[in-house]
């Protein structure tokens, strides 16, 4: 192998295959381990290959090895085939927000290929460079920008090759859809395929870390991009509509067996004994595997494993101390608990001016307390993984959104060399944060090693809903001061977050199996959160958030992990509801009041966040047809009350304003969000339709968390275990109209370096406050505790005499 130290073997194999030097038959013959999946791989696009790639060891000698692709080699990122098409290797995963398609658009644009001349391979640790997988809404903002630079570099190299071939300077060449022609003699052409098809670039890149990777070429000015900005249909959708796409949940291997778990029936319970005779007569029974408080049953068939897990008699001992308060007493507990010193992370405590002094001298002081319960990811498909331990290696098939840390975490957990472990990401149920997909992969790998056979694990619904990691509960107390003219002079935000021992991603000592086996991290992560993100000018303010802890920090179904826009919906619910309370106290229109706070300062930051905040608030009000007046409106006497509310926030460099229009049925307590408007500024938009779909999902998921979702528990276990005990938004609750307004509030939107900012999560965060503010507008009753299920709404309306 010439050139770089580690271009993925799979990439070289691909080149060889496309170059015709290895027949499909030879390929199958040498693959050894894998005899499936090749046909399914073609489902989402010609030239996309499947899961049959052989590891670099051969059958007879060394164990399989999957070295890291070297990100400083162009060939690790991009391959041009003989037919002129290209494959892009992207170390991200796509949870259905279209980041794969968008990345393909951006890279094709730089390379001057048509969209359908390329395919994208994502999230295979042996084939794609380690870009960390998904998270933080950064796929387009950060990682696809690296892809653009790589594609630009490939284009530069190809133009130089053509320049040499024709004896014409690069300036004399033009390129379109992979065909380079002479400007002065357009009949003379050469294709990318002819120049390099099936061969390596052997071009070294530079950059101190993967996110800084670059060649010497410059990326195109925004004005020259052709595919960016187009609503190109997502490449993954046809295979999702005709069932041809093979998902992680679909993979079947020869000799594969099925496992199911038995979880502690009480949080913190200790395993006393297992009566294996209770399941020995289950057909297909193979083994009970247990270590510490971890218990799994393995059977030949899936339904057998389910039955065995139901029937297995296990004796548990309850812990001496209640693990947590019952959810009915959660917020009292949190407000009474000691705040963990030093918790909260960066930005947990910030003070400007003299908030206490300004509150003491304010004309009006408003105080309010907001409560947000634990929320679950509650994926529609419970966590699952398949692990194959053959030939001394371990391959994990998963939808985990961070395959790279999945690989290193599992290697650490099993004491394996990471090069002997690979993770193959495939499509699966949604990835909104640190889901139990992390846990299931570790469990499958552990069981596969124990059994010496491929083991498929899937959690049952009750496990998924009860034991998946939770978005943390918050108890937030606010005080605000107005002067005699209704200007906000002080704001004090005091948050408490139930986020102690936050599990992180794929950590070998915090995944569920490790906790149940008794492993503990050296130091529990205290977890934490900043206050709400807004650009309001308030001269005196304090924001402080600290974690509180429960008696049980580990082996708890209330372990917390990142859930879509971690902490954003909770903190913004409190922050933006309270701004609405201040607006009402000032007798001001909620939109006008916010604009006044945004215009209080005149300076701005490098991303023009203040100007872009004003732009989204104005755009949302205009799209909605907002009539300026204070809230509440006139509360009618009919059964159904209507109102509208606004909330605004930014996340990183994306600004968002959401307006909700609600109907409140005062007989049933049902709230229906009839209409939503979202004005959204994430800078450069890559694929408007795909972005709109993502925003619609964020808005509806936000309504669901506002109106319905709550993880409930008694003093010993989580009692939310299915869709009845953990309701979610349904078709009946869907707004009849959603307007998404894409704004670009950059004062100079035509600048050539206009960047895309993250859009996967930001529009989620203003939703709860917008809905609660609309309910206030309709009823004059302020809703300060989520969720707003009918019984709570009736209770609040009743308390207010409505």
């Amino acid at each position: 192998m010439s050139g770089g130290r580690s271009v993925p073997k799979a990439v070289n194999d691909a080149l060889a295959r496309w170059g015709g030097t290895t027949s499909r038959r030879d390929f199958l013959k040498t693959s050894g381990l894998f005899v499936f999946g090749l046909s399914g791989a073609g489902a989402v696009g010609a030239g996309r290959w499947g899961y049959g790639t052989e590891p670099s060891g051969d059958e007879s000698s060394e164990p399989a090895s999957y070295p890291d692709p070297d990100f400083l080699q162009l060939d690790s990122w991009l391959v041009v085939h003989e037919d002129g098409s290209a494959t892009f290797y992207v170390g991200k995963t796509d949870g259905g927000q279209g980041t794969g398609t968008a990345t393909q658009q951006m890279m094709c644009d730089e390379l001057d290929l048509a969209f359908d001349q390329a395919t994208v391979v994502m999230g295979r640790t042996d084939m794609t460079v380690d870009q960390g997988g998904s998270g933080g809404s950064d796929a387009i903002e950060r990682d696809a920008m690296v892809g653009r630079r790589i594609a630009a570099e490939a284009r530069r190299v190809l133009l130089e090759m053509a320049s040499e071939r024709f004896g014409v300077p690069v300036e004399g060449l033009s390129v379109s859809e992979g065909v380079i022609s002479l400007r002065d003699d357009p009949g003379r052409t050469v294709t990318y395929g002819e120049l390099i098809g099936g061969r390596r670039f052997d071009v070294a890149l530079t950059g101190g870390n993967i996110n800084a990777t670059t060649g010497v070429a410059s990326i195109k000015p925004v004005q020259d991009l052709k595919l960016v900005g187009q609503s190109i249909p997502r490449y993954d959708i046809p295979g999702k509509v005709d069932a041809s796409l093979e998902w992680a949940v679909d993979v079947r291997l020869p000799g594969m067996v099925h496992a199911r778990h038995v979880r502690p029936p009480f949080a913190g319970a200790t395993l006393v004994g297992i009566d294996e005779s209770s399941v020995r007569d289950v057909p297909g029974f193979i083994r009970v595997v247990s270590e510490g408080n971890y218990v799994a049953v393995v059977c030949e068939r899936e339904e057998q494993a389910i039955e065995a897990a139901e029937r297995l008699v296990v004796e548990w001992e309850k812990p001496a101390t209640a693990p947590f308060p019952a959810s009915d007493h959660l917020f009292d507990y949190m407000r009474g608990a000691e705040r963990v010193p030093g918790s909260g992370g960066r930005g947990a405590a910030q003070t400007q001016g003299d908030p206490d002094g300004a509150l003491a001298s304010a004309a009006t002081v408003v105080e309010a307390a907001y409560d947000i319960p634990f929320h679950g990811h509650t994926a529609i498909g419970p966590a699952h993984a398949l692990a194959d331990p053959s030939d001394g290696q371990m391959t994990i098939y998963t939808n985990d959104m961070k395959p790279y840390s999945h690989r290193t975490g599992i290697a650490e957990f099993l004491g394996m060399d990471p090069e002997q472990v690979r993770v193959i990401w495939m499509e699966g149920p949604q990835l909104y944060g640190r889901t139990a997909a992390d846990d299931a992969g570790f469990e499958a790998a552990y069981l596969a090693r124990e059994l010496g056979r491929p083991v498929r694990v899937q959690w049952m619904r009750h496990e998924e809903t009860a034991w998946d990691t939770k978005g943390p509960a918050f108890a937030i107390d606010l005080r605000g001061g107005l002067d005699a003219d209704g200007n906000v002079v002080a704001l004090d935000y005091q948050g408490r977050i139930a986020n102690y021992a936050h599990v992180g991603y794929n950590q070998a000592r915090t995944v569920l199996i490790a906790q149940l086996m008794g492993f503990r991290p050296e130091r529990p992560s205290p977890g934490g959160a900043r206050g709400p993100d807004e650009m309001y000018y308030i001269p005196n303010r304090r924001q402080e958030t600290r974690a509180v802890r429960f008696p049980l920090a580990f082996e708890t179904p209330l372990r917390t992990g990142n859930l879509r826009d971690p902490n954003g919906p909770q903190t913004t619910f409190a922050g933006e509801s309270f701004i609405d309370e201040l607006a009402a106290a000032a007798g001001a229109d909620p939109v006008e009041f916010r604009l006044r706070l945004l215009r209080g300062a005149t300076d701005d930051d490098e991303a023009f966040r203040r100007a872009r905040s004003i732009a989204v608030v104005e755009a949302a009000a205009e799209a909605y047809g907002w009539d300026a007046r204070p809230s509440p409106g006139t509360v009618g006497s009919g059964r159904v009350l209507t109102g509208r509310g606004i909330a605004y926030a930014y996340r990183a460099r994306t600004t968002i304003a959401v307006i909700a229009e609600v109907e409140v049925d005062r007989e049933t307590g049902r709230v229906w969000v009839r209409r939503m408007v979202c004005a959204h500024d994430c800078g450069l938009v890559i694929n408007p339709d795909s972005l709109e779909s993502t925003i619609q999902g964020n808005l509806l998921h936000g309504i669901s968390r506002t109106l319905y979702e709550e993880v409930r528990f008694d003093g010993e276990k989580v009692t939310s275990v299915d869709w009845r005990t953990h309701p979610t938004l349904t078709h009946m609750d869907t707004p009849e109209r959603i307007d998404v307004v894409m704004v670009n509030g950059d004062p100079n939107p035509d600048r050539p370096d206009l960047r895309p900012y993250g859009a996967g999560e930001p529009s989620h965060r203003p939703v709860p406050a917008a809905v609660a503010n609309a309910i206030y507008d309709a009823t004059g009753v302020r809703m300060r505790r989520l969720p707003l299920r009918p019984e709570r709404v009736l209770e609040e309306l009743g308390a207010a005499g409505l």
Partner: protein
Amino acid sequence: MSEITLRVNGETHTLDVDPSTPLLYVLRNDLGLRGPRFGCGLAQCGTCTVLMDGRAIRSCNRPVSRSTGEITTLEGLPEDGELHPVQQAWIDEQVPQCGYCQNGQILTAAALLSYSPSPSDDEIREGMNRVLCRCMTYYRIQSAVKRAAEAMAEGEDR
């Protein structure tokens, strides 16, 4: 174990399985189908939906012994190599995000339109209501059902 005969996507399969086995696992693990997926095992979410004699049913808790009708899975929905109008509408409206639940959404919509060819907005909400989506693609689903209804009406006019 005992011998069970199933009619799936126009083919007859004879299998040696426990008659109490839920249909879902036989479709997925014995017949290798990918459309119906496990979501809850409680018939609450609709992810495992198949059509039986044209009606949308939940395969996760129906014993294979009581699955004697003509079963159609998502794989069997296209006719003569052409996507069903509901599937085409799903592509045209770019409905799926993760896509895990869309099997149930598509088959429920196809069943709905077979007995209610031009449903009102309320009928769509009610007809689709028990099929859950955690990506919350409901808004596009409802648009796609309308689009499919229009396409099917045009198809009949032709």
